[in-house]
């Protein structure tokens, strides 16, 4: 009985200490996504990503609409991290993007019980781009190739010779494609943001 008070005091002091520690690293550590920006404003994404993807989910499954920016596959593509061997880490693994905040707020999602938590291997020919994006990518590559081959440009002649010696590896090409697609998706998105948000928030 007599020892009770000091115990309670200790406990209180402990709790206080814990509080300060928690305040120090306020919030979860969220791995950064690829590219410049998300498919919508970062603030907006933080608050509304769950509604966006669940809306997208029904659009795709029921109405077959697949060219929208809020696809879960796209989230994985941009937000997945790679380990030291450049191997993708499951996006729902501990500390990874989709579990960073969720662990912090004790939210739990089951999406990656079914959905691939890493992008498909690079050798997958069927990347599933919308046809328009594919065409745009072809055009982009053709343009770039033409630029690189411009006569008289020593540096590009040099780089072409280098490229012939060490052909670019698939991963690089894939990254270039992805960067381009991100731009494409964002352009498409900003072109119709007001209307699209309207329908999303309906």
């Amino acid at each position, binding site marked *: 009985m007599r020892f009770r008070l000091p115990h309670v005091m200790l406990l209180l002091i402990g709790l206080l200490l814990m509080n300060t520690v928690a305040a120090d690293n306020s919030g979860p550590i969220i791995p950064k996504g690829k590219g410049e920006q998300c498919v919508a404003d970062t603030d907006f994404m933080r608050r509304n990503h769950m509604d966006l993807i669940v809306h997208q*989910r*029904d*659009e795709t*499954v*029921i*109405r*077959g*609409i*697949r*060219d929208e920016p809020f696809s879960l*596959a796209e989230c*994985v593509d941009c937000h997945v991290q790679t380990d030291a061997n450049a191997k993708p880490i499951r996006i729902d693994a501990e500390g990874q993007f989709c579990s960073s905040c969720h662990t912090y707020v004790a939210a739990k999602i*089951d999406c990656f*019980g*079914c*959905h*691939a938590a890493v*992008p*498909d291997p690079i050798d997958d020919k*069927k990347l*599933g781009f*919308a*046809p328009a994006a594919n065409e745009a990518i072809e055009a982009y590559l053709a343009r770039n190739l033409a630029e690189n081959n411009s006569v008289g440009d020593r540096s590009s002649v040099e780089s072409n010779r280098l490229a012939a010696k060490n052909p670019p590896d698939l991963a690089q090409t894939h990254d270039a494609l992805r960067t381009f697609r991100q731009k494409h998706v964002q352009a498409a998105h900003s072109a119709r943001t007001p*209307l699209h948000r*309207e*329908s999303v928030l*309906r």
Partner: protein
Amino acid sequence: MKSTASNSPSNASAAARRRFLQGLGTIGAALVAGSAVLPANAQATVKEIKGVTGKHRWGLLIDTTKCATGCDACVRGCNAEHGINSTGNPDTDAQWIRKIELKDNLTGQLSSLPMMCQHCESAPCVDVCPTGASFKRADGVVLVNKHTCIGCRYCMMACPYKARSFIHEPITDQLTRAPRGKGTVESCTLCVHRIDASGSQPAEKSAEKTVQQPACAVSCKEDAHNAITFGDLNDPDSEIVQAIERSQAQQVRADLNLNTGVRYTRL
């Protein structure tokens, strides 16, 4: 019964009251919607051009005279497309397509055919589903919405073709294009991801563009059998409709009047 009832005066006044109340309801709805009329209209136009419509009805024609006994190219193609691997329990492994060998006991004639979801117009699996997860897309493709599937398996009971599988064990290494997981039912999707990817939207365009073939049809062709034709059953000029007419292709269990989207030549 109906006509006599509505002739009696009390029923007539009840009907009038119902009409009046309905009118009130409409006015109320209009008032509520008033402020949102413009955006709603704007959305309606967007919706018209986006998403699948009833303009097409996708289906398959299986030519059993070309389907080879013992060949399972379509099954392998399907499994590869959707990342279906054995979990080590063949009894419960998912089967989106299975090969069936039929024998006519009188003539001794053997035939071989792939059996999969028949994409019925009046699908029993859709009727019995308690959550609406088993549904028919506007373009006739019968699907499971795994997001709302509770794994009750009524649809499996209702399906006359035993076309659906339940996933009993956890699955890993899924493909991006084919999310699959424990506790839900699944079956042939007619490769909707391929149909959708080949620009079937806006709906008007797809007539000009060729729609990507499902994986099973592609594998069958690659194996030089060419027994599976995919196409639009709503288009009288399509290859599939022409071939169905030419060969008088049949439905399996036509007696059930389900108007299947998968037809078989020389059953």
